[in-house]
């Protein structure tokens, strides 16, 4: 039984109806493109044996970019997962910041070269460190969001003690794969989210597979978003390869969250065309025909077509952007390759914190 792949149609939304300027949609395109080219380069580096491992966000970029633009970037808080290269790029991660992690080099800002690459963590972008055990971030994100509620409830006491509280709540966005919704963590998180109407968006990338396990072996409901019904939270599905639709749906979820109307479970549908990771060989569990059909889930050409149709992109601009992106990726690779490894003894650092750096997301 193969995974079902739907036919995908041209984008019919109009960005101005969503409140997005021409400039912003071009920026979105640039972020899509940069993520894609960076990702492709990582595959090459891995296949060349220059880096040990890559886990890809290809075909997930529409979700990441759409979601990032729906947030108040630099204010809202994000607890992502390993497919979120594009989300991180659209939030402001520079290619070199990714490449340092990919190579495990000194200065990797995510984990000081301790974690596998794609474990995004950037303090200045409000991106919280994630681990590999799936779904663990979801109840943690609920905790981050609960703290936002507490800040509002306890404002006078906190401010009197020197802890400023922003006028509005920060919204917390967390992401995970459809397979990971089977974990108990997901359930417990959504349960809290419903009870406390948390300012939280749980964005599930449904790419049809958890490594080799298709979604129909993973759950008996037709849609991941159906799970919202068990928790009294909002549930909605969107086409993950339509960046404007993702933007719209996540934006509504974010606005609802900020307004105190609680959590939304957003399912963004796509298809994973790469193997799960560079360690995987997907020929054992799905046909090449299915994968070819799945490649129709590609946010890039759909968005490009839209921009052409709307006369925002020209061939010349497209080429310029390609060149710019390639140059950025080249430069990032070069810098990362030149960078030395950390000293061996750095393995011993930062087991325990000696002072509090957890910080306080306050006024702004």
């Amino acid at each position, binding site marked *: 039984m193969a995974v079902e792949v739907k036919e995908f149609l041209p984008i019919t939304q109009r960005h101005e109806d969503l409140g997005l300027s021409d400039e912003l949609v071009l920026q979105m395109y640039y972020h899509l493109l940069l993520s894609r080219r960076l990702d492709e380069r990582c595959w090459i580096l891995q296949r060349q044996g220059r880096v040990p491992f890559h886990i890809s966000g290809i075909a997930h970029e529409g979700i990441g970019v759409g979601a990032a633009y729906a947030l108040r970037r630099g204010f809202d*808080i994000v607890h992502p997962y390993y497919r979120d290269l594009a989300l991180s790029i659209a939030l402001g991660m520079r290619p070199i910041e990714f490449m340092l992690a990919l190579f495990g080099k000194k200065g*990797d*800002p*995510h*984990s*000081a*070269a*301790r*974690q596998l690459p794609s*474990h995004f*963590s950037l*303090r200045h972008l409000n991106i*919280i*460190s994630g*681990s590999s*055990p799936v779904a*663990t971030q979801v*109840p*943690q*994100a*609920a*905790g*981050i*969001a*609960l*703290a*936002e*509620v*507490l800040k509002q*409830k*306890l404002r006078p*006491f*906190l401010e*009197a*003690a020197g*802890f400023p509280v922003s006028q509005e709540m920060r919204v917390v966005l967390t992401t995970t794969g459809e397979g990971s919704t089977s974990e*108990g*963590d997901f359930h*417990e*998180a959504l*349960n*809290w989210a419903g*009870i406390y109407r948390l300012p939280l968006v749980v964005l599930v990338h449904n790419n049809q597979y958890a490594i080799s396990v298709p979604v129909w072996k993973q759950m008996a409901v037709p849609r991941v978003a159906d799970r919202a019904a068990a928790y009294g939270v909002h549930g909605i599905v969107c086409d993950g390869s339509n960046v404007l639709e993702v933007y719209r749906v996540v934006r509504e979820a974010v606005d609802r969250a900020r307004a105190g109307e609680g959590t939304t479970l957003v399912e963004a549908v796509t298809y994973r065309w790469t193997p799960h990771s560079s360690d995987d060989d997907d020929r054992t569990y799905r046909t090449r025909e299915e994968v070819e059909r799945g490649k129709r889930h590609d946010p890039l050409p759909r968005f490009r077509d839209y921009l052409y149709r709307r006369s925002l992109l020209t061939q010349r601009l497209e080429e310029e952007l390609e060149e710019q992106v390639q140059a950025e990726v080249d430069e990032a690779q070069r810098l990362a390759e030149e960078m030395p490894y950390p000293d061996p003894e750095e393995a011993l*650092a*930062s*087991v*325990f*914190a*000696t*002072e*509090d*750096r*957890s*910080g*306080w*997301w*306050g006024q702004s």
Partner: protein
Amino acid sequence: MPEKTLIEAIREAIDEEMARDPRVFVVGEDVGPRGGVFRATMGLWQKYGEWRVIDSPLAELSIVAIGIGAALNGFRPICEIQFADFIHPAFNQIVNEAARFFYRSGGVYNVPMVIRSPYGGGISGGLYHSQSVEAFFAHVPGLKVVIPSNPYDAKGLLKAAIRDPNPVLFFEPKKGYRLIKGEVPDGDYIVPIGPAKVTREGSDLTVFAYGMMHYYVLQAAEMVAKEGIDVEVVDLRTLAPVDKATILSSIKKTGKALIVYEDNLTLGYGAEVAAILAEEGFEYLDGPVMRLGGPDVPGVPFSPPMQDFFMPNPQKIAEAIRRLARY
């Protein structure tokens, strides 16, 4: 100084820290109007309100995960796990997450939180209301593990734990909640996390213990003192990171060691103390490093004779001391 019970000292520490720092809050099952099943948070919901004393859903994994998240967002959560036996559903969030957050983020995100939980047997709780779980967590770098044996330390250590920038597991000997009394100052003081303490000076041998067993060890030491055995007692207090210096300086003095714990013997915390002694204290040893622990069975049985059989007590400890002293 006023005399207080262990549970009163714990409650006082929480209360004072909540008054001192509005970022401190409590979350757990039945901690609210009920004040906790052991009454550790009695009156706090009434005093601080429902946003600082939060009755959680019945779900330990998320009690801890919510704590992690709130800590990352600036708060100082005190998570209560109702019985240590029920900490296992949260194991992944503690061991893979809380413990590794600071390290995995290259020292960027620290997680200042406390996980409090009552542990230990001898209260007719059967297999699932009697467990000792400290060894699991003392094995995990990135976690601090603290077990007080008396009200004074309980208050001071819990305050230190709440102010610590790292995740601290704070296990409380529940059999001692009302049984163990001692002088506890009103108001603020700290007992630092880290140092063990020599609680009885002696020259013939050292007994290492913590929590409820430390209480019994002091009684056993009195018993054998009458027989002329002069026992030194070390209260380990902080199990992780371990205070090797105090352990080694005591063995240097007495040359013989007994470690007492109520957890299952094999790979219980005493194994680590014994291993430290066997490696770094080897030159000082005048006899085998003895351990007295619970037997290696899957739980403390409910029925009184079997429960008594399982639990170490002052008599059994005295017997072990005599055996070691004879060596």
